[in-house]
Structures are given as structure tokens and as C-alpha cells.
């Protein structure tokens, strides 16, 4: 190898020489040709925008920053970091492909969640069910109007669950080719909950309804909190084993938190373990942000369907709260219905904030936490149904 050869080899391996791919004569579609040529640089710009959203706008930065950076790395020409021998490809294969990372994160979520407000006021669980309307509404639209296949429609619907690990787990099983777009949509809209929800909530409620005060929640004993995760898991075993990996991970984390004898493990799930897995989950989900899978009309549709799903979920929760008030003496404030979409604890905070606007003395936060955590269970159950019926 002489100087000229080395220089040529080095030039061949630069990004400049490979950024824009040469025209591939076997591709006949003009748009595909364009993507083939300029896909990677466009994706890099998109990832920089996602990074900006994560850092500057603080859109779920714990996930959006790693996802965007993973996307950046996987669109670098030549390096093939997302390929089968690249480090993001290896991490993806080991951790996401079989669903390990989302389940571990769900353990941590369980170890960080206090189901007390739900146990204190069980009927608010139904609000967490009504908000799953977003999932099935978006599924219906995706299937009938946007031409997605049934598994794809199921994966898109789950965006409406407003629950990151659940979305990633379901998408990996049903439609891994959509993982990048769905994860980006799910986390972005979760961050946008304070923007998306209030207009819908105000539209569907009267000022009087928004001012309803709720009685203070009773104290929940330690034993109830210990038994609760086992009850949820038990129901799930009887009714829907397909949801058991998700619900099992969630309830395991929660049992470890509440039982009080394995605090070492519970602390680790909430900190070192969930942080480590979040880093790798984010980076490897980002590795699916390739131009041929992301720069499609499908991605546009997914973004549209995602916001539809969030809106339907919000509406579902609020409307069902009003329906419940028709049949119940003890009135509930319909604003806490919107917290049923999960997006813990953001949606509950939104309920509280909108409630305070109507009545500055009315703190709804703890009341909204009930439907909020019920929404996590509801989404996991809905995920189990999708996994059972959509493939």
C-alpha cells in the first residue's frame, strides 16, 4: 500500500464521500431514489431537532435525548453503528428484540408508583379504563382509513396508552418496522400532554363541573398496598395471560417497593437499574430511526394518529367521568378523567392545574393520581388484548 492507495482508501471512508449515495438505477420511484440518496443527512437533521426538543423544550428528555442521539449515530454513513455488528445493533438485539428492556423499565416504574390513591378510591379505576378509548379509536382509524395492517394498527393504537415502555414492548412484538416513529410519537405527545389536554377538557366540561370539590381520600394501610399488586396480577393471570409480562414486571416492582423488606432491590430498580436500561433502551430505539423506515408517509400518518389517540383518550376519560356522575350520588370532578391516559404523573398535574384555574382552592392532584395509575394498568391490559388479537 503506497501513499496514493492509502489516501484513496481514506477518502473512500470519509463521510463526505458517502453522505450522498450515488443514484441506484434499480430504484425506479423518484421519491425512493431521493431517500436512497439523501435519506441519512435528512434523518440527522431530524434527530438534531428531536435533541433540541428534548434539551431545550424538555420533552421527556430522559428518553428523547438518548433516542435522538441513537438516531444520529445510526444514520452515520459507513460506520453502520445500527447494523448487526455495530454496537447499537448489538444492544438492540440483546435488549429490545425480545422485550427485555421495556419490562425492566416497567419494574422500575412499578417500584416508583404509589397505588395508594387508587386503593383509597377504587371506582376511579374505571376512568383509567375509559381513557383506553384512545387506543382502540386510533386503531380503528389506522386500520380502516390509513391502510395499515392489523398488527401495525395495534402498535399505532398503543400510542394512545401514553405509556412509553408499554408502547415499545407492543410495537416490538407487533410491528418492529414502526418502532422509531411510534416511540418518537409516544414520548413527544406524552411531553405535550399539558398542551393537548386542557382545551379538550375545557370543551367537554362546564365551569360548574370543573369546580366540583372531592372529599379527602382515606388513609391506605401498608397491608392493602402489599396485597394490591398481587390482586392485579391475579386478575391478569385469570383474565389475560398475554398482559402478564408487562403487568408482572409492574407488580413485581411495586411489591418490592411496598413490602418493605427488600428496600435494597427496590432502590436499585428505581435508580441504577432503570437508569442503565433507559440509556440503552433510548439509544437502541433510536437506532431504528433509519431513513427508509422513518421518511415515509406512514410516519406522517402515525404522528397524526398519535395526536388523535391522545385526544380521544382524554375525551374518553372526561366523558366517562360525566357519565359516572349521572349514576352516582358522590360526584367526581370530570377533570380527573383526563388523567386516565397515564403519562404519569404529567396528566394528573394537568387535571390539578385546570382545576385550580376554575377554583383556586380545589387541589385535584391526589384524586387524579387514582385514574392516572389505573391508566397504566388499563394500558397494559389493552396491550395484552392487542398482543392476543392483532397478530
Amino acid at each position, binding site marked *: 500500500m503506497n501513499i496514493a492507495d492509502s489516501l484513496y482508501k481514506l477518502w473512500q471512508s470519509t463521510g463526505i464521500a458517502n453522505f450522498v449515495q450515488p443514484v441506484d438505477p434499480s430504484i425506479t420511484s423518484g421519491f425512493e431514489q431521493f431517500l436512497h440518496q439523501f435519506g441519512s443527512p435528512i434523518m440527522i437533521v431530524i434527530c438534531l431537532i428531536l435533541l433540541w426538543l428534548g434539551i431545550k423544550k424538555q420533552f421527556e428528555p430522559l428518553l428523547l435525548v438518548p433516542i435522538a442521539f441513537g438516531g444520529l449515530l445510526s444514520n452515520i454513513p459507513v460506520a453502520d453503528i445500527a447494523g448487526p455488528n455495530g454496537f447499537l445493533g448489538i444492544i438492540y438485539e440483546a435488549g429490545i428484540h425480545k422485550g427485555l428492556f421495556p419490562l425492566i423499565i416497567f419494574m422500575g416504574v412499578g417500584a416508583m408508583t404509589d397505588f395508594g390513591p*387508587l*386503593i383509597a378510591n*377504587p*371506582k376511579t*379505576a*374505571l376512568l*383509567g*379504563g*375509559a381513557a*383506553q*378509548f384512545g*387506543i*382502540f*379509536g386510533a*386503531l*380503528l382509524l389506522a*386500520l*380502516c382509513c390509513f391502510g395499515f395492517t*392489523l398488527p401495525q*394498527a395495534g402498535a399505532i393504537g398503543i400510542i394512545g396508552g401514553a405509556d412509553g415502555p408499554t408502547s415499545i414492548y407492543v410495537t416490538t412484538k407487533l410491528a418492529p418496522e414502526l418502532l422509531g416513529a411510534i416511540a418518537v410519537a409516544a414520548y413527544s405527545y406524552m411531553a405535550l400532554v399539558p398542551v393537548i389536554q386542557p382545551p379538550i377538557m375545557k370543551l367537554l366540561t362546564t365551569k360548574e363541573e370543573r369546580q366540583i370539590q372531592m372529599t379527602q381520600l382515606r388513609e391506605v*394501610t*401498608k*397491608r*392493602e398496598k402489599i*396485597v*394490591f399488586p398481587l*390482586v*392485579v396480577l391475579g*386478575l*391478569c393471570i385469570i*383474565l*389475560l395471560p398475554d398482559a402478564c409480562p408487562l403487568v408482572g414486571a409492574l407488580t413485581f416492582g411495586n411489591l418490592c417497593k411496598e*413490602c*418493605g*423488606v427488600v*428496600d435494597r432491590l427496590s*432502590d436499585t430498580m428505581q435508580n441504577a437499574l432503570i437508569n442503565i436500561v433507559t440509556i440503552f433502551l433510548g439509544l437502541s430505539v433510536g437506532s431504528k430511526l433509519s431513513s427508509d423506515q422513518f421518511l415515509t408517509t406512514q410516519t406522517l400518518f402515525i404522528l397524526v394518529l398519535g395526536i388523535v389517540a391522545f385526544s380521544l383518550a382524554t375525551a374518553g376519560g372526561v366523558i366517562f367521568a360525566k357519565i359516572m356522575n349521572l349514576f352516582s350520588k358522590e360526584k367526581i370532578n370530570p377533570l380527573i378523567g383526563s388523567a386516565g391516559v397515564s403519562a404519569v404523573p404529567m396528566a394528573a398535574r394537568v387535571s390539578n392545574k385546570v382545576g385550580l384555574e376554575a377554583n383556586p382552592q380545589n387541589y385535584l392532584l391526589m384524586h387524579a393520581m387514582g385514574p392516572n395509575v*389505573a391508566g397504566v*394498568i*388499563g394500558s397494559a*391490559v*389493552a396491550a395484552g*388484548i*392487542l398482543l392476543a*388479537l*392483532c397478530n
Partner: protein
Amino acid sequence: MNGEFLVLLEQGFALMGIGMGFVFSFLVVLVFTMGGMSKTVQFLNKLFPEEVKVVEKPGKRANVSEDEAIAVAIAVAKAQG
């Protein structure tokens, strides 16, 4: 509006009906089970009242981890010294 669309529509609505129905059924059963659970636990708490506290206390104590205890000890020592 062709036949295929109708098939998809039926499938979509079937899924929606079944899905929402199932989620609601699950949560309704959960609501009643939670009620039963709370009553059972409160009954048990009356039968064995002290035990509950015994379980709770070590849990809470354990929350203050060793590291923190050390940090506190040093802090107190320095603040007093």
C-alpha cells in the same frame, strides 16, 4: 365504499368493542376486588393490629440507608464541633 373497507370496518369495530369491553370488565372486577381486599385487610388489621406496625417500622427505618446515616452522622458531628 367497497366490500374490503366494510370488512376492515367490522374488524376495527369488533376490536374496539371487545377491547374496551374487556378493559372495562377487567377494571370493574378490579374495583370490586379492591373493595373486598380493603375490607378483608381492615378486618385482619383489627384481628392482628400490632403486627402491621412491626412490619411497617423496619421498612421505614431501612429507607434511611446506611450512606445517608453516615452522611448525617458526619454532618451532625461537624455542625456541633
